């Protein structure tokens, strides 16, 4: 059971994952069509976690996740309505990257699987909550606040990508 809960809180304790979920959730909440990107994220996340369970090798998942965060942050700051296919594609890319960047630390197979299930549920829960919260922000100053947070998230993700590149950590 503890393995499940450690997976459940995994997206909250990994800063890059939390940034991605915040940026994506705020962006989806800013759009009219929220269901397709949420479904796209959940499906892609499940695929990524399954690939991890099948012991896929090292990937550029973190870099892709950071790039998706930066793009979502810029789109948030622009505050323009997006075509549904674009928001769904971005959510799917973030979902699969988040899944691939969440290898469990558990030793036993059962514990590892429980951790992965927890991670999937935790990430989806956080995304839905952020999306719902963002959708409720309808006053003009709240929307401006969301745009400002978007620019902060984009700036943070861009700086991290540059740091990873400079340190030779990029895949």
């Amino acid at each position: 059971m503890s393995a499940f809960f450690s997976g459940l809180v995994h997206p909250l304790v990994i800063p890059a994952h939390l940034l991605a979920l915040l940026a994506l959730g705020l962006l989806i909440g800013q759009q009219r069509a929220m269901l397709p990107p949420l479904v796209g994220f959940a499906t892609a996340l499940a695929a990524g976690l399954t690939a991890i369970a099948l012991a896929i090798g090292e990937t550029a998942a973190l870099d892709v996740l950071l790039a998706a965060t930066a793009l979502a942050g810029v789109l948030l700051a622009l505050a323009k309505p997006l075509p549904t296919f674009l928001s769904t594609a971005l959510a799917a890319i973030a979902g699969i990257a988040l899944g691939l960047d969440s290898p469990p630390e558990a030793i036993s197979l059962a514990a590892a699987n429980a951790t992965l299930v927890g991670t999937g549920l935790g990430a989806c829960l956080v995304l839905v909550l952020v999306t719902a919260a963002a959708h409720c922000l309808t006053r003009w100053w709240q929307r401006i606040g969301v745009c400002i947070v978007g620019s902060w998230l984009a700036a943070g993700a861009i700086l991290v990508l540059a740091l990873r590149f400079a340190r030779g950590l990029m895949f």
Partner: protein
Amino acid sequence: MRHWRHPIALAAISLLLALVCTPAVAHSGSMRGGFGGGFAHPLFGPDHVVAMVAVGLWGAFLGPSAIWLLPIVFPLVMAFGGVIGILGVPLPGIEIGIALSAIVLGLMVLLAARPPLAVAAALVGAFAIFHGYAHGAELPPGADAVAYSVGLVVATGLLHLTGIAFGQLARWPAGRMAVRAAGGVIALAGVAFLAAAR
């Protein structure tokens, strides 16, 4: 009596934000990594602090659209400057550019200048490159990249919010004088930074 509540509330918020963002003692280049290190970095340089606050103050004079545009433009362009700094691309006159940012933005506030929004955004963006470069170039080698970057950006944003909150006093005649005077003080501080940078 009712119309007194807003300036008092705004002044209280400004004071609270200023207290959070006050410990400015010049660039040391020795901050630790992590969120705290990133958060402290903009606050440990008075040249950064006054310029960030000036951006918020100027936004208040430029009108509602500038209040949100400038704090959005600045972090994004600052990140671009940070990338240049992190990659070690040479950019001459960083300290002079930062000092000039305080002088120019302070003067804009002092004169209550209202250029077209695109011009204001371009000016703020140009100075943001210098500030971002300095943050990127002075990054501690062992810093946790994500936490440090988030701390850096959040502190910069809070300094903008401090300026925006103080700038709201400009709605009232006495507050307008106070905000313009703050711009003058920032410009004078910029002159001191420029003298120290040469």
